[in-house]
């Protein structure tokens, strides 16, 4: 089912705009009126990262008149494998500013508004209010539920995309859509997954070009919504598999038993950064990377267990560590491999997985086990800056 155009057309296109957008103008479904709608459109992109990079570039090139960018982070070298809006000379710069400069080069007619802050429950509604459409390209569940709930409260449509390794998902959510077609993210994922069960791209990796595959679906949907053409993804989820090279579509319907959203909540708490068990276990059993170094230097007898995955162990490791992936500890399978006669020190990449494993070890009777807060990243930063980080 189609939807009416989201945006009224601008009064006119200049001669310069007619030249620039001519390949759009000669498509009957877009034409002058569609391009004028794009010119008048205000689109907010949350995150100038993997999905935000291609999305912003194509929205700008397409002639969306106003682009808002919410991004607090800075460009890191490890971003450049997929975040194509940023370049080598942008490393260390705020991503928002880097994205704005790229957009100016692609299309100087676009007005860019930067929000260099972390989106949270105190600012989301004020930022969203000025926009016709939102694109969600964030990288964590807490912000995903926040974006959904803020969009629901304001009656705004948004385009949603998410990626992991070789797979992506995309859809359009709009609780207030006309014709009773309304649907939101919670109709697809009513509750966040248990903390620690779903790896992030930083933990599990992502094929760089996947960002373009999903980002381009998101921009396609944005253009369709703004101009009112075609069949929007509202009520459908696209699941893309790059290895199979397949797109599967799932129909989604509104959940009639869903609780209405009445206010924004504490999303970090809602999604749980780590499980309660892990937080409790880590509370008085966390050492710093420097303390680990002191333990090693003083010749203390202990076992250092790296609970990451083998491919991560290949990238960088702390000298003397033994690899036992977290899942093998949680399942109990690896308990018999652990030394019983000396203290255990666990670590992972950043401290979340090792906290989960620590909780399991405390329960299994390894009461003295501790973990390294900040993991191998903290080790590389505080103890051995010559090591690569990822």
């Amino acid at each position, binding site marked *: 089912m189609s939807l009416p155009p989201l945006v009224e057309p601008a009064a006119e296109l200049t001669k310069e705009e007619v030249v620039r957008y001519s390949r759009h103008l000669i498509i009957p479904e877009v034409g002058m009126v569609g391009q004028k709608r794009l010119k008048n459109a205000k689109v907010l992109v949350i995150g100038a990262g993997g999905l935000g990079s291609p999305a912003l570039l194509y929205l700008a090139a397409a002639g969306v008149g106003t682009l808002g960018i919410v991004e607090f982070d800075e460009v890191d070298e490890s971003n450049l494998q997929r975040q194509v809006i940023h370049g080598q000379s942008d490393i260390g710069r705020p991503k928002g500013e880097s994205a704005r400069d790229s957009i100016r080069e692609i299309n100087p007619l676009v007005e860019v508004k930067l929000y260099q802050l972390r989106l949270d429950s105190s600012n989301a509604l004020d930022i969203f209010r000025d926009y016709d459409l939102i694109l969600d390209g*964030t990288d964590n569940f807490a912000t*995903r539920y926040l974006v959904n709930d803020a969009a629901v409260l304001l009656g705004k449509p948004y385009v949603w995309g998410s*990626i992991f390794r070789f797979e992506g998902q995309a859809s359009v959510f709009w609780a207030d859509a006309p014709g009773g077609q309304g649907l939101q993210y*919670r109709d*697809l994922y009513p509750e966040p997954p*248990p903390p620690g069960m*779903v790896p992030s791209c930083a933990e599990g990796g992502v094929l760089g070009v996947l960002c373009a595959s999903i980002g381009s679906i998101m921009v396609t949907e944005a253009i369709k919504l703004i101009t009112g053409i075609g069949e929007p993804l509202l009520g459908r989820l696209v*699941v893309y598999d790059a290895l199979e090279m397949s797109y599967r579509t799932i129909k989604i319907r509104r959940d009639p*038993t869903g609780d209405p959203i009445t206010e924004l909540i504490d999303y970090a708490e809602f999604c749980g950064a780590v499980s309660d068990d892990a937080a409790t276990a880590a509370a008085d059993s966390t050492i710093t990377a420097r303390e680990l170094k002191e333990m090693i230097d003083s010749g203390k007898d202990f076992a250092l267990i790296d609970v990451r995955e083998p491919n991560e162990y290949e990238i960088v490791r702390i000298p003397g560590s033994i690899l036992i992936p977290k899942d093998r500890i949680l399942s109990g399978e690896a308990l018999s491999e652990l030394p019983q006669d000396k203290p255990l020190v666990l670590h992972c990449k950043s401290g979340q997985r090792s906290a989960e494993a620590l909780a399991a070890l405390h329960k299994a009777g390894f009461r003295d086990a501790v973990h390294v807060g900040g993991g191998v990243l903290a080790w590389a930063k505080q103890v051995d800056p010559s090591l690569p980080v990822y």
Partner: protein
Amino acid sequence: MVTVRYFAAARAAAGLPSERVDIGDDATVADALDAIAARHGVELHKVLGACSFLVDSVAVRDRAMPLRPGAELDVLPPFAGG
């Protein structure tokens, strides 16, 4: 008999995109999940812990919900990467 469709990590763990599962006429979503976990082992069992489930396109909130014969059950692991 219901049709179960697996996506992303659930597809990888089950080793196939969809299958028909023979469960009783008054079986619930929980029964169907037990049946597929038993069939495909620990890998799928782990993935199911994080999944969202859609029955005939509507998200499941109560796993005690009965499944109509011929229902479609989608098994959908979430991911939040961007």
